[in-house]
């Protein structure tokens, strides 16, 4: 636990000076605040931008930041040095995961500002689940990638699918059918009525299968490659 806290502290200092990562964390919360206040159109669903950007936030920020942090540390040998200083790989991953999750949750709190008070807890709960799955996916990519370049090329397609499919699903039925298999689409459905209860079994099954797949791939990636 102490070592994971050291990683969190280190990462906090580093993020404040890392514009690429910092922008991932603040882009969607900022855009949500701006758009929700600037655009009001007749017939537009309530909190449309909050819900839309929340799903994009889940699909982008934790995924890209975790993959980028791990791959950069691998590329620049800092991870090796940490491991040699007796930080265990799981302590490191836990530190990075908890850090990214916490920062994203802070972003989610900002995004929740305009929501009705009674929905805020449920909103944060849904976001928390989404961030967690996304962090595992990002960690898998970080483990597989040998450097930042390869991490980016792996992150891009995954991020596009997770972030944009739910948005495109609003306009196209075929895409909607495909998007159903991804946790971001199911979480979007939950956000639409601010509930995780009362959905069809499909929501729970897809979420569960996505969690299991993310954990399995993470476990296999970690077993096969560790943090080398």
């Amino acid at each position, binding site marked *: 636990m102490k*070592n994971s806290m*050291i990683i969190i*502290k*280190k990462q906090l*200092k*580093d993020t404040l*000076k*890392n514009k690429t990562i910092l922008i991932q964390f603040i882009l969607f919360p900022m855009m949500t605040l701006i758009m929700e206040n600037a655009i009001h159109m007749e017939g537009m669903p309530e909190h449309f931008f909050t819900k839309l950007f929340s799903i994009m936030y889940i699909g982008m920020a934790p995924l890209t930041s975790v993959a980028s942090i791990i791959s950069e540390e691998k590329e*620049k*040998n*800092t991870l*090796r*040095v*940490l*491991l*040699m*200083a*007796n*930080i265990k790989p799981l302590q490191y991953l836990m530190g990075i995961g908890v850090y990214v999750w916490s920062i994203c949750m802070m972003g989610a709190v900002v995004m929740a500002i305009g929501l009705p008070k009674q929905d805020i807890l449920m909103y944060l709960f849904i976001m928390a689940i989404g961030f967690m799955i996304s962090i595992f996916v990002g960690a898998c990519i970080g483990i597989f990638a040998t450097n930042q370049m390869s991490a980016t090329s792996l992150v891009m397609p995954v991020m596009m699918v997770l972030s944009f499919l739910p948005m495109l699903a609003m306009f196209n039925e075929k895409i909607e059918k495909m998007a159903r298999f991804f946790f971001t689409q199911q979480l979007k459905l939950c956000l639409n009525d601010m509930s995780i209860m009362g959905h069809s079994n499909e929501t729970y099954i897809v979420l569960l299968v996505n969690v299991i797949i993310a954990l399995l791939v993470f476990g296999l990636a970690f077993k096969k490659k560790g943090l080398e």
Partner: protein
Amino acid sequence: MIKCKNVAKSFDDKAVLKGISFDITEGQIFGLLGPSGAGKTTLIKILTGQLSFDGGEVITLDKEIEKLTGEDKRKIGIMMDQFGVYERLSCSDNLKIYADIYGIQYSKIKEILQYVGLGGAEKRSASKLSKGMEARLRLARVFMHSPKLIFLDEPTSGLDPKSMQAIHKLILDKKKDGCTIFLTTHNMEEAAKLCDKVALLNEGEIVEIGKPSDICLKYNYKKKIILRLTSGEEMELSHDATSAKKIYELMQENTVEAIHSSEPNLETVFLEITGRKLQEEA
């Protein structure tokens, strides 16, 4: 302190280390010399427990490598050949991470930065350091927890002579403090200056091992004394009494500018044994 017996390591079908054997006693500076790709970094990784090996026996800190505990690993300091610092963080913040890990008080950070010649650069971002300063920062990180055994992988690679000299001084200071140092380099002058014992590694095999001066003497086939006279003329004399007499006479006449022996340096020895230059690229 360190003992290697018939250590072998292959990656896929390629044998990188082929039956490496040597030992290092406490307080020694041991230099592993070889061109890029000879297997130096692989050997460091094996000796520090970062990489498993296929055969042989490895003893580090007088213990089998597999039996090293977390407490034992605290006694080891490792400086890798590339990067290893958080470029966006300041020198001081870089060291704070390791101070937290090793439970060292922050007050020691200023002290150690002064020691490696980075006093005044505490707040400077690591990305703004020169190569020599970055090497010192990496050394500061290694020295911070006062390890007994230090591994330095090409510590002066790419540095200017002044920075190189400063790093050499720090390494020799650590030896005086009683540290055992394992150093890899392809700079034979560095090895000859710093090391008590060197091993020449070529294509995964140790082709020669011993005291640098002993190795050079062993390959001194010419056994000649070269005199440079004030007239600019050079004379080659053999190792015998007649030559001694001749040198005496010339010196009495005050016509001797310099006297050299013909023993080769480590670079020449390596070239002779392997047909390769130490500084050639892999």
